[in-house]
């Protein structure tokens, strides 16, 4: 049992990239960016991190149910986005 066996490159890469993305997200506090730019940066880093977890750590594509798992997860994501954006549209943006 070696270090390489217990800490495979894939997991280390996933972990280090999630730490780096967190630092990038954090930078919105320390640089003078507008709210709009900040939110765009946060959207990119958050969804990239979610992707890392899903593909690298959760092994979403490794079994024969791969297609069903991805289809259902994208569907759930769609529902969540429609819920959030639809709520913002009807409760806030629609009145501006």
């Amino acid at each position, binding site marked *: *049992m070696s270090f390489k*066996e*217990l*800490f*495979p490159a894939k*997991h280390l890469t*996933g*972990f280090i990239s*999630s*730490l780096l993305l*967190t630092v990038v*997200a*954090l930078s*919105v*506090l320390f640089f003078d*960016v507008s*709210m709009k730019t*900040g*939110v765009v940066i*946060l*959207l990119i*880093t*958050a969804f990239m*991190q*979610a992707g890392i*977890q*899903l593909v*690298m*750590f*959760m*092994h*979403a594509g490794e*079994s*024969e*149910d791969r297609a*069903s*798992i991805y289809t*259902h*997860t994208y*569907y*759930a*994501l769609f*529902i*969540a*986005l429609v*819920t*959030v954006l*639809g*709520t*913002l549209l009807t*409760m*806030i943006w629609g009145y501006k």
Partner: protein
Amino acid sequence: MKIDHSVPKEYATEENRLKIFGFWIFIGAEVALFGTLFATFFTLVDHTATGPTGKEIFELPPVLIETFVLLTSSFTIGLTVHAMRMGYKKAMLTFFAITAVLGAVFLSVEIYEFTTYVHEGAGLQTSAFTSSLLTLLGTHGAHVTLGLFWGIFIMIQVAKRGINPETANKTFIFSLYWHFLDVIWIFIFSFVYLKGMM
């Protein structure tokens, strides 16, 4: 029960494979649940009434500790499954225990955070903002609490019965749950705290 040795133990029987698939369906429902909580929070975030705003109560250090602790625990539960697949029970349980300890650290910091909020006059009933904030954070925290106990029970089973198709399946499903909670936290960290402190 037919055991297929060509795949990792957690997939070794049809029932195992379907349990993993079923858990992905459950995670989809959880995504929808947190979607509604985020929608509520984003709608009410500026409605602070006479209570404090996010900028006034959010503190970066505890939030950063929570974030790095949860990111690391997501990494160690990944290593748990990896060690499990190679049959290293001791390494598996060590990584599993580190995950549980990190989960407990996360919860301690979050409880500290919640008591600070209440002391600063930001309770569950203070304003629409604090209600939606604490409901969102609390639902995530309740999931972590459940996961902590769930994980401890699975560790005991692995320690007693070893790595077999049943315990491997439970461990793998737990790892899915734990990674999912990390994903939710990333969104809380980004769009509740960082956006709130901008």
